[in-house]
C-alpha cells in the first residue's frame, strides 16, 4: 500500500475537523463518511493485520454496510494481553514480538534484534529504536497489555493532545508554564508519553516536576506480581512477604514525602499559571497535601488535566468540589477526558460535564455481552462502549471496552452537537458485571503503596 500510515481522503476529511470545530458536527452528518472510511480501513488493514484477517474470515464480514457489521471485527480489550506471561518471565523476546505482530499493521517486530535485552522495559525500548513504539498498560496481576504504535501514531497523538488541550483550556504551547505530574515518569506507558508531550509543548524548561526522579517501570510492577505468583505456586516464604510489606511501607513513606515536596513547589509558584496533569486520585492526594500545608489557591489561569478513575481510593463524596476549592480553578474549564488505552484518541470533557466524541472516532454502544448494538431509547444509548478510532495507525482501531456508558445523540446542554457520553462505569464494578478481569490500577496502587519491591 502506497499510502501506508497515511490517511485516506475520507479519513482525512474526518480528521480535518480536528480542533476547534471537531465537536460541533451532529452524529447524523458523519454516518456516511464513517462507513466509507471503515470499509477503506478494513480493505487496507486486512492484508496486514493477521488477527483482523482471522476475524473477517471467521465472521464472513468483508464489507461494512452498517454499524452492526463491524461488531465481529472489534478486538476485545483483553486481546492485547493474550500473550503467555511466561514469554516475559523466560525472556522469549522474539516470540513476544511475533505475538505482537499478529495485531500490527507493520508486522515485522520479530525481525528486531533483541540480543542483550533483560527486562520488558528494555524490550519496549529496543522495539522503539526500530520503529515499533510499543507501549504497555499494566494490570494489577502483573501482566500488562502490549500495543504496537507506528511513528504516525505518535505524531497523531502529539498533534491531537496539544490541540485538544488548547481548545479545552486555552493553554498555548509556548513552553511557558511550570508543569506538575503527581506520578513518576513512566517511559513504557502511554500516559507517561503523553505527559512528556505536554511537558515539551507547554512546560517551561527546567521547571517540569514529576513525583519522583526514578521512573516507574513495567518490570517493577511485574516484580510485585511475581511475589503473588510465587505465593500461589507455594514457593514463597514468609520473610519474602514481610519484605514485600516493608518495601510497600517504605515506598508509601517515599510517596508521601514526594507529595509534600510537590505541594511545596506548587505553593512557591502560586503567582503564575501552572499545569497539573494526573488522575482524580492523584489530584485528591495532591490537593490534600496543599490543604494540610495551608497553601493558597493556584493562579486562576492554571490548567488542571484529569482523567481515569479513583481505582479503589476511598475519598469523600464531594472530593471533586474539595479539589476544586483548594485549587481555585473552575472545574468547568478543567481538561477532562475519557477513552481507553487501546485507542489513540479520547473524548473531551465539556462544561456540561459530558465527554464529546470527535468525528474520527466511531462510538459503538453494544449490549452488555458486546454482541449486538444496544437499542436506541429516544436519543440515548446505554450499554458496553466500543470504539473505532481512525487515529490508530499501527494497529486495528476497533476495540470493545469493559465500560458501561450512556451516550446521547442529541445536542449537549453545553451547546456542542456531537455525540456525548454522560456516565461511565466499569462492568467489573457493577453487580450485573460478570467479568473476572481486574482493571488496570497501577498508579493509584503505587500512590497507596499497595505494591512495592
Amino acid at each position, binding site marked *: 500500500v502506497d499510502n501506508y500510515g497515511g490517511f485516506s481522503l475520507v479519513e482525512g476529511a474526518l480528521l480535518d475537523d480536528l480542533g476547534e470545530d471537531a465537536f460541533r458536527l451532529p452524529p447524523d452528518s458523519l454516518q456516511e463518511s464513517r462507513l466509507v472510511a471503515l470499509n477503506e480501513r478494513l480493505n487496507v488493514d486486512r492484508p496486514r493485520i493477521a*488477527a483482523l484477517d482471522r476475524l473477517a474470515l471467521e465472521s464472513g464480514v468483508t464489507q461494512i454496510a452498517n454499524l452492526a457489521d463491524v461488531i465481529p471485527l472489534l478486538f476485545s480489550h*483483553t*486481546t492485547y494481553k*493474550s500473550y*503467555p*506471561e511466561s514469554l516475559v518471565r523466560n525472556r522469549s523476546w522474539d516470540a513476544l514480538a511475533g*505475538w505482537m505482530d499478529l495485531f500490527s499493521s507493520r508486522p515485522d517486530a520479530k525481525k528486531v534484534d533483541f540480543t542483550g535485552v533483560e527486562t520488558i522495559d528494555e524490550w519496549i525500548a529496543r522495539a522503539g529504536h526500530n520503529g515499533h513504539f510499543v507501549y504497555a498498560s499494566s494490570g494489577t496481576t502483573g501482566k500488562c497489555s502490549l500495543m504496537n504504535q507506528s511513528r504516525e501514531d505518535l505524531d497523531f497523538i502529539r498533534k491531537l493532545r496539544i490541540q485538544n488541550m488548547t481548545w479545552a483550556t486555552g493553554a498555548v504551547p509556548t513552553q511557558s508554564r511550570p508543569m506538575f505530574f503527581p506520578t513518576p515518569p513512566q517511559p513504557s506507558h502511554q500516559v507517561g508519553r503523553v505527559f512528556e508531550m505536554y511537558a515539551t509543548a507547554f512546560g517551561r524548561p527546567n521547571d517540569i516536576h514529576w513525583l519522583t526522579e526514578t521512573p516507574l517501570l513495567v518490570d517493577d510492577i511485574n516484580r510485585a506480581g511475581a511475589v503473588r505468583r510465587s505465593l500461589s*505456586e507455594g*514457593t514463597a516464604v514468609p520473610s519474602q512477604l514481610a519484605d514485600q510489606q516493608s518495601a510497600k511501607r517504605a515506598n508509601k513513606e517515599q510517596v508521601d514525602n514526594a507529595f509534600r515536596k510537590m505541594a511545596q513547589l506548587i505553593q512557591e509558584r502560586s503567582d503564575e499559571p501552572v499545569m497539573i496533569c494526573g488522575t482524580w486520585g492523584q489530584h485528591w492526594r495532591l490537593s490534600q497535601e496543599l490543604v494540610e500545608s495551608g497553601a493558597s489557591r493556584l493562579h486562576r489561569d492554571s490548567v488542571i488535566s484529569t482523567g481515569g478513575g479513583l481505582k479503589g481510593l476511598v475519598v469523600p463524596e464531594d472530593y471533586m468540589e474539595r479539589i476544586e476549592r483548594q485549587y481555585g480553578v473552575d472545574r468547568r474549564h478543567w481538561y477532562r477526558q475519557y477513552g481507553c488505552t487501546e485507542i489513540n484518541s479520547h473524548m473531551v470533557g465539556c462544561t456540561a460535564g459530558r465527554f464529546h466524541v470527535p468525528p474520527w472516532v466511531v462510538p459503538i454502544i453494544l449490549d452488555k455481552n458486546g454482541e449486538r448494538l444496544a437499542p436506541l431509547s429516544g436519543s440515548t444509548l446505554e450499554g458496553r462502549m466500543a470504539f473505532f478510532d481512525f487515529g490508530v495507525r499501527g494497529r486495528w482501531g476497533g476495540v470493545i471496552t469493559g465500560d458501561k456508558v450512556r451516550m446521547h445523540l442529541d445536542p449537549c446542554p453545553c451547546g456542542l452537537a456531537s455525540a456525548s457520553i454522560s456516565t461511565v462505569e466499569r462492568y467489573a464494578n457493577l453487580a450485573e458485571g460478570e467479568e473476572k478481569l481486574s482493571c488496570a490500577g497501577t498508579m493509584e496502587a503505587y500512590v497507596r503503596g499497595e505494591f512495592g519491591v
Partner: protein
Amino acid sequence: MTKSPVVSIAHFQSGQPVFGDARRFSASGVSLVAPELDLDKLVPRRDAPAPAQDLKMDEILDFLEATCGALRVDKAGYLSEALDALSHFSPLSRRILVGCYSRLADSFERTSLEFQLSQQLPRGALDGWVSVSPPDMPVSQVRAFPARIAHVLAGNSPNGAAVSIARCALTKGINLLKLPTNDPLTVTAILRTMADIEPDHPVVRSISAAYWKGGDQEIEDLIFRAQFFDVLIAWGGESAIRSALAYAAPGFHVVTYDPKVSVSLIGREAFATPITLKEVASLGASDATVLNQDACSASVYQFIEGSEEEADAYCEALASELLEDRPLADGLASATLPELREAIEGLRNLAPLFRVWGDYAGHGLVVRASEPVDFKPTGKVVIVVPVASLSEAFRWVTVATQTVGVYPAERKAVLRNDLAARGAQRIVPLGVAAINPQGLPHDGSLPLQQMVRWITDQG
C-alpha cells in the same frame, strides 16, 4: 437443544415434596420457579431428637437398598421427569445426563454403603454407645452422635446429589440440602422416590431440600448459625466456598470441598509403541474430559516424560481422542469461551514455543507448552507440558491439586509421597479419574466422620 420456558423446582420437607411458584429466578437464560421459602420449617429445632437417631444401621441399609431398587425402576417417573427438565438447561448433553442418571442408584448399593461404613465410622458407634478404656481410668462410652447439617451442594454432576443423600442417611443426622442452581432437580427426585417407599420413614423425615440463590446473604445469614446447625458442608467454586466460610463461628463448623485442579503425569513408557501411545492418549482424553472438563477431577495439565517432538506426537493423538464421545464427555461440547479462545489463538502463532491442535467449536483443544499457562483451561482444553522426568512436574502440584492420574500405574508408588507432600489428594491410574468409589477419602478427609459429633459418656 430447546430452552424450556420455566423450570419448576420442588422443595422437600417433613417427608413430603412442596410445590409452588411463589418465587421466580433466572439463571443462564432459564426461568426457575420455586415455592415459598418457609425457613421456620426448614430449620431443625434443638428440642426434638433427630428422627433417625434410634434407628439401627441395618434398618437404614435395608431402606437404602430398597431406594437403590426403586431408583433403578423409577416407577413414578420422578427421575425421568427431572432428567427431561434438566436436559433443557444443563451444559451437559442429554446422552451424558442419561448415563449419570442410570448410575444414581449405584450410590445406594448395599455393598458400597457397607464399605463406606467400614472405612470411616465404626457401625457400633453410630448405633449406640461403645465402651472404651483409657489406660488406668474407668471405662467410658462414646457415640458418633447424629448432627444437624446444612449442605450447599454443587450441581455440576447429578451424582453429587445421590452421594450426599446416602451420606446423610448413613450418619442419621438432620439435614437441609440447599439445591444448586445448575441442578435443582435431582435431589428432590431421589427424595420423592424414597418417600414413595415409606413416607414416614425416619430417613426421609431427616432430609429437607430447598432452593435459594447461592450466597443470598439475607437467607443464609438467618439460618447458618450454631443455634440451628452444627455443620455446614459446602461444595463448589471459590465464591461459594468463601461465602460459606464467612459463617464459621464457635459451634458452627464449616467443611468445604474446595475448587480443585487435576493433572496427569505420563511416563516415557507411553512411547513404547504407536499402539501404546494411542491407548495412553485415550486414557488421557478420558481423564481430561470428565463432565466435559467441568469436574474438579478432570485433568487440565498433562505432564509427559519426553522430548518436545514426543510430546507433540502425544498431543496429536490426544486431540483426535478428544473427538470421541465418552460416558462423561461429548465429542462435540460447548464452543470454547471467548477469552480462552483469544488466549489460545495468541499461542497458535508462537510455534515452536507453543503448538495448538483442535478448534474452538467444542471438539477440544490441545496446547503444547513449556509450562502451565496463565489462563484457566476449561471446556475440553488440555495443556501438555513435556518434562525430562516426572519429578519435574512436582513443582506444579500444589494445595489446589486434587487428582493426579499416573501412567503407567506402577509408577504411582514412587511418586505418591512427593505428590501428597506437595498437596495432591488423590493418585489414580491414568484413565480412571472419573471413577470415585465411595468410602475412600474425599478431599483429604473421611466425609462420614465430619457429619457426626463425637460425644463422651465418661466413666
